[in-house]
C-alpha cells in the first residue's frame, strides 16, 4: 500500500507552454517521495462552487528537490482557475493516486496523445530500456523538445504541420516502429487504436485511462471501466480507474 496524502502544497512555478497548456511545479516531500510515473494527483479548486477534484497526471518527479511537475490543458472552469495560480500560492491536492505504470519490457514504444503526453515524460525518464517515443497532436506541439534526450521521438499531427500527418498509429506505421511493449496515454479513440494495434501484433500494452472522478481513492464507484473478467473487488465486470488503474493492460479492459 502506497501512502496517500491530502494537503495544501506550495506552488513553485506556473508557466504557459502554449495557448491553453500550462506547466506547474509544486513542492512537497511526502507526496513526491511516494510518487511514480503513471500516477496522478487530485487538484482541488479554491472557488467554493467547484467541489470535485481535477485529476492530473504526474509529468515529472524531482526527488532531490521534492518537487513534482503537472502539465495541464485548460479544459473548463477548474483548470482555468488553476491556470491563474502563481508561484508561492498554495494548492490543495491529494495523491499520489492510482497504480502507475509497471516498468518492464526490453524495447518499448511510449505513446502519448494530446494531454496524455505529460505522464509519458517521467515514464521515459525512469524506464531503463530501449525506447521510442510517439507523440500525437492536433496541431501545435508541446513538451516534445523535452523528450528528445530520452529516446527517438516521432510526432504525428492531425493537420500534418509536424511529423506524420494523421494519428500516432499512422506515425508508428510510417516509421516502421517495433517493440515488445507499448505504454500509452491519450484520448479513448487513440487508446482503442493502440489496443487494436497491440492485439494485432501480439504485443502487451499498458494503457492509462480517464474517467470523471469524485473520491479518487476507490470508494464512490464513479470512475469504472468495463473489464473482461469479473473483478475481484466489484464482483462484476467493472474496475475502478482511480484505484485499480489508471493503468491497465489492454487485454484486461473493454474499450
Amino acid at each position, binding site marked *: *500500500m502506497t*501512502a*496517500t496524502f*491530502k494537503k495544501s502544497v506550495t506552488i513553485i512555478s506556473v508557466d504557459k507552454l502554449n495557448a491553453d497548456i500550462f506547466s506547474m511545479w509544486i513542492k512537497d516531500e511526502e507526496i513526491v517521495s511516494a510518487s511514480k510515473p503513471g500516477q496522478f494527483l487530485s487538484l*482541488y479548486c479554491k472557488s*467554493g*462552487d*467547484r*467541489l*470535485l*477534484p481535477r485529476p492530473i497526471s504526474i509529468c515529472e518527479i524531482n526527488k532531490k528537490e521534492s518537487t513534482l511537475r503537472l502539465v495541464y490543458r485548460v479544459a473548463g472552469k477548474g483548470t482555468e482557475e488553476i491556470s491563474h495560480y502563481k508561484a508561492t500560492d498554495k494548492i490543495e491536492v*491529494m495523491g499520489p493516486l492510482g497504480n502507475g505504470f509497471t516498468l518492464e519490457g526490453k524495447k518499448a514504444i511510449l505513446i502519448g496523445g494530446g494531454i496524455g503526453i505529460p505522464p509519458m515524460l517521467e515514464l521515459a525518464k525512469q524506464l531503463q530500456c530501449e525506447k521510442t517515443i510517439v507523440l500525437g497532436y492536433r496541431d501545435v506541439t508541446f513538451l516534445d523538445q523535452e523528450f528528445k534526450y530520452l529516446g527517438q521521438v516521432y510526432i504525428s499531427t492531425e493537420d500534418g504541420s509536424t511529423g506524420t500527418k494523421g494519428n500516432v498509429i499512422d506515425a508508428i506505421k510510417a516509421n516502421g516502429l517495433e517493440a515488445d511493449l507499448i505504454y500509452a496515454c491519450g484520448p479513448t479513440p487513440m487508446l482503442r487504436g493502440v489496443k487494436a494495434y497491440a492485439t494485432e501484433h501480439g504485443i502487451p500494452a499498458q494503457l492509462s485511462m480517464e*474517467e*470523471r*472522478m*469524485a*473520491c*479518487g*481513492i*476507490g*470508494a*464512490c*464507484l*464513479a*470512475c*469504472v*471501466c468495463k473489464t473482461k473478467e469479473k473483478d475481484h*473487488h*466489484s*464482483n*462484476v*465486470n*467493472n474496475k475502478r480507474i482511480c*484505484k485499480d488503474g489508471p493503468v491497465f493492460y489492454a487485454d484486461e479492459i473493454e474499450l
Partner: protein
Amino acid sequence: MNTKVKIAGVEWKNPITTASGTFGSGLEYSEFLDLSNLGAVTTKGVAAIPWEGNPTPRIAETSSGMLNAIGLQNPGVDVFLERDYPFLKQFDTNIIVNVVGKTTEDYCKVVERLANAQVDMLEINISCPNVKEGGIAFGQNCTSVEAITKEIKKYAKQPIIMKLSPNVTDITEMARAAEAGGADALSLINTITGMKIDVHKRGFVLANKTGGLSGPAVKPVAVRMVYQVANAVNIPIIGMGGIMTGEDALEFIMAGATTVAVGTANFINPTATMDILNEIKDYMRKYNINDIQELIGCVK
C-alpha cells in the same frame, strides 16, 4: 462533554455516520481515519445479488453540488458478508448496512441474510433515483412506503431505518407512512433528481441522463425536510444532505436530527467526518453545551 446519542435503541459514541455510497465499506477511507472514531459506518447499498450499476459517465459537477448515477453497483450480500463485514467488525463502531432491491422480495432477502450478522442497524434505500426498477419507485407513494416497511420488519432483527426521497410533494406523508409501517428511524434526504446538459456536445453529461443531486447545494432543502419530519413523527432522524462543516451538521441537529451523515464532503476531504466532529465539539465548548442532546431539535 457528552456526544453520545441513542437512536432507535442503539448507542452511538457520537452523532456522525457516513452517507451511504460515499464511503464504500470504509476500507479506502480507513487509510485516512480510524473508523472506530465514527458513531457508525453506513455502507454502500447492498443487494441480494451483484449489480453492475450504470454506464459511465456516472457523475457530473454542478454549482456547489454533484450529480451521481452510479446505479447502485455493488458486489452483492454474499461478498459483503464474506469480505466487508469482517473488515468492519474490527472497528469499535456501529455498522449500518444500506439495503437495496428491485422488488420487495429482494429487500427482504438481504434483510434476512443480515439478520444474524452483528450488524447494528439496517438502512432501507427506497429512494435511489438512479435505477430503473425499485429504489425511488417505492419511496414516492405513502401506500408503498408503509407496505414495504411492514414487510421488511417481518424479517429484520435489527432496527430499521427507512431512507426517504426528497423528490416528493410532502415529505411528512412519507415519514408518517414509514412510521405507520413500523420503521424505527428515518434517514433523509437521499439525492434530488437532476440533469446536466453538455451544450457543446449537445447531449447529456450522464450516461443515465438524470442523476441525484447532493452536496451543499441541497442543504437548505434537506434542513427544511428534517425540520418538517421531526415535527411530524415520533421516531428519530438521521439527517444528511450537503453537510461539509460542523455548523452544517448542527443545523440538522437543531432542526431535529438525532444523528447526521456526511456524504459528498468525504470526496473533497477524506477526513471530513472527523473534522466535522471536532467542529461540533468546539461549538459545544464555546457555548458551554455539556450534552449534545440539548441541541437536538432546539430550534422550533
